[in-house]
């Protein structure tokens, strides 16, 4: 079950996995995610579905190595199987023909953004994608996004490729140039999403953020993923993961993402000791 059909390294610390999961592939809609458990002693990790192929019965996941579980996952190769994959979870993105849509993805945020963009295009929107990376060698999926979007803007922090600066600089530039933007959708690191929301707020551009809180079951059972949206407590796994970015308490989300940091470090150190033979170790 849940065999890895293909795996490739997209950039430093980012892997792309195509996984056999026919039931999920058949149902997955833009914005939805799965929960993966790598081994029998593994934790449940939420990963957004970047792409699906219902005919082949596969889903594509993007994994950034940040801690023990994701490093462990990166040791898995084509032909290996994951212990558990469950989904599709969360509410699908609410997509309409808005007109001019700007989709913004930072690093791993490109996983949800890619799938959402597929839906946005299908609905007949004019689509601009802004992709942000730290530097040129970390860029991935430029080709895929170019096929999908009407325009792709790449930003790098160090200016080694595309526009020098942050995704918000590119977005601000579009706004300053007087471009009419009807909808902004963003996914990526919390500070990035928070910054995007601040850029669009004064212009009253509707903005959706795809959130990435800590989860356990992913089905509304534990409440680990609770976020404050418009002053109300929501469970990102069942009420989201997408919310009105202008209403999300991003500082709280950032704080909650740090809840297990000290323990995650312990797990990572132990993993590195034990897996010194592995190429990732």
């Amino acid at each position: 079950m849940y065999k890895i059909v293909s795996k490739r390294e997209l950039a430093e610390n980012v892997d792309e996995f195509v996984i056999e999961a026919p039931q999920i592939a058949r149902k997955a809609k833009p914005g939805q995610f799965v929960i993966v458990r790598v081994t029998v002693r593994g934790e449940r990790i939420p990963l957004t579905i970047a792409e699906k192929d219902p005919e082949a019965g596969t889903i594509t996941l993007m994994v950034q190595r940040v801690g023990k579980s994701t490093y462990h996952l990166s040791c898995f190769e084509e032909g290996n199987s994951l212990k558990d994959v469950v989904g599709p979870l969360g509410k699908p993105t609410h997509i309409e023909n808005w007109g001019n849509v700007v989709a913004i993805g930072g690093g791993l945020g490109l996983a949800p953004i890619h799938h959402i963009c597929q839906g946005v295009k299908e609905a007949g929107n004019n689509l601009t994608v802004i992709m942000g990376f730290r530097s040129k060698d970390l860029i991935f999926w430029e080709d895929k996004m170019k096929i999908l979007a009407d325009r792709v803007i790449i930003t790098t922090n160090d200016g080694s490729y595309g526009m020098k600066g942050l995704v918000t600089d590119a977005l601000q530039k579009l706004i300053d140039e007087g471009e009419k933007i009807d909808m902004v959708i963003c996914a990526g690191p919390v500070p990035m999403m928070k910054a995007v929301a601040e850029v669009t707020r004064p212009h009253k551009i509707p903005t959706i953020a795809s959130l990435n809180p800590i989860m356990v079951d992913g089905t509304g059972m534990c409440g680990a993923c609770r976020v404050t949206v418009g002053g109300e407590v929501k469970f990102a796994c069942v009420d989201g993961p997408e919310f009105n970015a202008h209403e999300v308490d991003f500082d709280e989300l950032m704080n909650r993402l740090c809840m297990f940091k000290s323990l995650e470090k312990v797990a990572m150190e132990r993993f590195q000791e034990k897996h010194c033979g592995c190429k990732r170790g």
Partner: protein
Amino acid sequence: MAKREIIKKRVPVPERDPKERIKDFKEVKLGYTPQLAMEEAKRCLQCPTAPCVKACPVRVPIPQFIKLIEEGKFVEAARKIKEENIMPSVCGRVCPQEIQCEGACVVGKVGDPVAIGALEAFAGDHEASVGYEKFEIKEKTGKKIAIVGSGPAGIACAADLVKWGHDVTIFEALHEPGGVLVYGIPEFRLPNETVKRELEFLLNMGVKLELNFIVGKTKTIYELLEEFDAVFIGSGAGLPYMLNIEGLNLNGVYSANEFLTRIIFMGANRFPEYDTPVFTGKRVAVIGGGNTAMDVARTAKRLKEVEEVYLIYRRSEAEMPARVEEVHHAKEEGVIFKTLTNPVKFIGENGWLKAIECVKMELSEPDESGRRRPVPIPGSEFVLEVDTVVMAIGQGPNPVVVEGVEEIRRGKKGEILVDPETLMTDLPGVFAGGDVIHGGSTVIIAMGDGRKAAKAIHEYVMSK
């Protein structure tokens, strides 16, 4: 039969020393030996009216199985129970016997009631140790039935349906089966092995199990109805209630579901050997007075890092919905009870919980639940310094399963509404039982529902 002499004192069930048992998650009760079980069985008066049976939600033939234990026929005793209840080892441990069978026991009127629960668990465990006997399966009907959820309601429903020759598939959302029996009840009260062997028995009988399958997401109820002749929803009450007070989203504030799932289901007590972490700090407060609150408090007590565990409850101990036995065990294990106390807000520092502001309560006139209503005493606020707090204030049915299914009506608390006789919802062919129709109740009530629905499902599919 000659009238028996009443033996007032119960044969005590051997238990592990509190000082020892809080070092691990192994079962607290050691259970009867055959000799002790036979001695206790002698206390049963074999009343012909058997009030105990009437007080049992599934009508286990209690005097009969106890007689068999007295005669040393332990396997036969287990099979006698299984005529009505397929999980004696589970129910013997987690049923609230004091308000059911044991509460009605005639011996209990003059002394300790017969230890029906402990005898039931003994019989179940004994049969397991010698090997289960497969029950007879009727001729295949060719009817396919889907069961949503592998907890007590689903297990009981599946067991009857497979016996009657139907093709039964259980769909479970999580990666291990058992539902609340494995994610909600800690091993020191109900060992996972006990649940596992009951489930294995079911699978050996031909019931199919699909894990990682979320009905409502992976497939909808409508899609299931295309493949199956009937559907039984036994998805439980998985949605945690939270106290909507200031500081709810501080780091260190958990729902009971999250806390227990991390530790007893995902193995966080064995972190980093297991990947799932749990942060507790040294002082843990649990809010609530039910069995789940006791389970959380006792679980916290067993974690190495934890030094003090407080249990905060707004009424007095007399009103606690938890079983007396659980309260007693929690106290023995050193849980500090703060009754007539209500949390007002969670106080944080840099995003982390530091303390709970509480207020003392007093009891006034009874409310609609019949319990005396707690009211705050003005000016009695105080601050309790803690590192984590766990809310165990109840849970409701998870809406995911029936989301978008308009025909299935739901009540105020999200509970699925059913015909009380057949447990069928307003969508023909879809039945529901257990916590999903009651909100939070008990394992045995869920099992009773599962069996009741099985009967109605059988009639429904056979007349189709």
